[in-house]
């Protein structure tokens, strides 16, 4: 799967979590722009993990602050 395809699928997954309808760019942050709390993060991460059949450990989550970083990380974890 290309990074563009990963991006497209995550964009669809994030929709229900983007309660305020924030315009998402690569620089959009989860904590500040999207105001995700720890519970939302858990649910959102679980959705992505199931969709791509991967694990995003808490150690890896700590390194991911922006939408762009997430897409890159998922693409890499996918190993394709």
């Amino acid at each position: 799967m290309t990074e563009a395809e990963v991006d497209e699928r995550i964009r669809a997954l994030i929709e229900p979590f983007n309660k305020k309808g924030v315009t998402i760019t690569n620089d959009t942050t989860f904590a500040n722009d999207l105001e995700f709390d720890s519970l939302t993060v858990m649910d959102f991460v679980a959705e992505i993990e199931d969709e791509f059949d991967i694990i995003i450990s808490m150690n890896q989550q700590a390194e991911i602050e922006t939408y762009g970083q997430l897409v890159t990380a998922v693409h890499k974890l996918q190993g394709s």
Partner: protein
Amino acid sequence: MTDSATQTKTPGADLFAKFDPIIQTRETLLASGVEDPFNLVMEKVLSPTRAICNGRDTILLGTYNYMGMTFDPDVLDAGRDALTEFGSGTTGSRVLNGTYQGHKECEDALKEFYAMDHAMVFSTGYQANLGIISTLAGKGDYIVLDIDSHASIYDGCAMGNAEIVPFRHNDIEAMEKRLKRIPEGAGILVVLEGVYSMLGDVAPLKEMVAIAKNYGAMVLVDEAHSMGFIGENGRGVCEEQGVIEDVDFIIGTFSKSVGTVGGFCVSNHPKFDILRLVCRPYVFTASLPPSVVATAATSIRKLMHGANKRAHLWENSKRLHAGLTELGFEIGTDEPQSAIVAVIMPDLERGAAMWEALLKEGLYVNLARPPATPANMTLLRCSLCAEHSSEEVETILSMFERAGKAVGIIS
């Protein structure tokens, strides 16, 4: 030279700035005139269930003194004797000069209590989790844990180098999915709790332990809130659900049913004892005082024969749960699953008001708030004691009724 020595740097950020939000929350709460829920002083302790708190005679319903061992005459005698014969403290690490006869006797009592080959006593329950988890799971290993795990479990994860993979609370399927995705050959430690202390709910250990074993994981179960009264021999939820043989490590504490302070890990793993040399929170701290291990050992041995007390504690838990439900309070679990009955409050303000109203009635409960609680809940946590009389439980219910109506939580 002299010039640069006198140069001043621009001042850095105030290191306390990060605490401003919590300072603000606290000030707002106290400005409403409520007694500070996190600054209570017990001036006198009359029994396992009664104390003078902030000047009032108070029923204690927010301690972890489940089995009421803190004033047991045999326990107190053992502590006094050890204090006289071995002194007030060991002034040393377990691996140097800090292992006394009493520490070995305490570990022997634990081995007998759990019918396991090895026992290791730590200075606190927190350190037991911190030490065992951070030492066992290293770089390249995986720790799979329930998202609602206790702070000591998370801190053990943070201190080690393993990959940390949480799953939704008590969700068997979510746990299995994550186990399935872990790369072949990686070491896995699954960390579960018997009773989760915030809502007092029990884990489906029977299913979870079986699945974990299927994926070749080692399993650690924290039985802090079940020791002494859940399971036929009080060994915990893993005993009650028939999976204790498949659990690799049980973590526990002396600060709840045992009635003093300290922590432990028991295991049948043949290499277990090497942990004494490689586990930093075990090595780099002073061992428990002789009086503490003597009271713990005596208490543990008495808990082996505590069937009647256990039965009464369960009666208390069931009565309180049913009574509060009838009054119209929302409880954390539909059925009583442990000695913890968690009453859900609508928000922190009304939770604090209810807490204060109960204190003025002469009842102490635990006010629990985020981040300690799941789902941002504010809870009034009631933990029962085997020494609460049936009459006391009725008194507690009438206190809840008056306070709940006064604060407007129930009608």
